[in-house]
């Protein structure tokens, strides 16, 4: 990385960290720069990799099937005219409907059937039993049609214990990744920029 690159990176890094102290003009400048760069970046990337090869070139080449996405996309664009926003409901309906449809079998498989299968799979061990109890109790915690009273109360309670262990553990191991990121930035600031680190 060239020296000028290092300096630009170091200054923007410090500007962002300054937000930890409080909101200030340096942070605000970095924030707007980042907004600008990322918006420009996604504009370039999506036009160059999606719109141009996926719509414009085929249309120019005479691919009539592309008229449908052209119309749907066009209906989205005419939202710019406030009176015509109602028409954008059609492409929205396509996205919502298709998204809902795709997700039904996919979710049932990944989130329900596979999880059930893994639970039933190996029960003949102490851990298997602990696991089974946990899955059933936690599923029943999410039973909404009744107050958590009677038999449901102890079951839901056990479910919460499992969830608390899970949330605590997740918190603990996610911290590791987050701290590593900070270490990476520190290495840059102390090493690449200030040359304070040996080796």
């Amino acid at each position, binding site marked *: 990385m060239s020296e000028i690159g290092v300096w630009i990176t170091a200054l923007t890094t410090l500007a962002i960290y300054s937000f*930890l*102290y409080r909101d200030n003009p340096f942070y605000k400048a970095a924030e707007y720069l980042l907004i600008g760069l990322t918006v420009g970046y996604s504009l370039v*990337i999506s036009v160059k*990799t999606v719109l141009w090869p996926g719509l414009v070139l085929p249309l120019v080449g005479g691919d009539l099937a592309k008229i449908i996405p052209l119309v749907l996309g066009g209906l989205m664009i005419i939202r710019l005219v406030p009176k015509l926003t109602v028409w954008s409901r059609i492409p929205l309906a396509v996205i919502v409907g298709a998204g809902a449809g795709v997700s039904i079998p996919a979710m049932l498989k990944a989130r329900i059937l596979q999880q059930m299968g*893994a639970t039933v799979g190996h029960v003949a061990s102490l851990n298997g039993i602990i696991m089974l109890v946990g899955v059933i109790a936690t599923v029943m915690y999410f039973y909404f049609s009744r107050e958590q009273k009677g038999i449901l109360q102890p079951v839901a309670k056990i479910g919460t214990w499992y969830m608390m262990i899970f949330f605590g553990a997740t918190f603990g*191991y*996610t*911290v*590791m*990744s987050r*701290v*590593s*990121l*900070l*270490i*990476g*930035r*520190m*290495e840059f600031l*102390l090493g690449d920029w200030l040359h*304070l*680190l040996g*080796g």
Partner: protein
Amino acid sequence: MRFDRRYIFLAIAVAVAVPMLFPIGLPVAVTDETRQVYDRIENLAPGDVVMFSFDHEASSLPEVRPLAEAVLTHCFRRGVKVIGLALFAEGAAVGYDILKDVGEREDKTYGEDYLYLGYRPQYSAAILGMGESIAEVFPADYDQTPYEELPLGQRVKSYADIELVVSVADGSLPTYWVEYAQARYGQRIVAALTAVMVTAYNPYLEAGQLDGILGGLKGAAEYEKLLGQPAAGTRGMDAQSLAHLTIAILIILGNIIAFARWRRGKSGKEGDA
């Protein structure tokens, strides 16, 4: 009155920066998971081919780069050939940098000992396609040299010629490697992951669908220890430990303060609820 959380921020910054400036050198114990990956590479024969897939975004670089460097170094030292590629656009330039850096450091020749294919979108299609023909998915390498003109490219046609795939990932890509390359072509796979992702892949390891998991900066530090060459992972471990310890202390401290306030409130004095 609310505690000013900026003291906490300062404590974290100090906990990370000080051990970097003044290393303590906490001992790193090697876990079985890491040793498994190390042994897997150690048991490769010179001339075997390993594929490195950089399946991550630029923002997780501080965590995945030490992992990738450690395993790559090991491969090169074993005389193993390496083919790199990226299935995330943001990984493309980064992967090239890492591969070139390590390759040059270990005195390897581009094209013969290693090569870099670059990026292909549509990862499931790319992973499947390479099972039939790598040259069809990547007609040319990252520098636009036709794949089949490279010495390594002439030798390696598909997964049949590849001993192991290492997916360096911060997300769900190793799942695709397992579901397509492993399930369909019997390709063996190792995942080098960010710490967050490790638990998500433990079931695959148990089921034998992965040959190993190397996780987080700690995993990199362990690997460096096995290699006998401390680098970024090891350097980070003191800071990592101290930051974790600081957070643990903060949790305990928060509770002690809350408990003390509660006691004070209970004994009738003024205090907040």
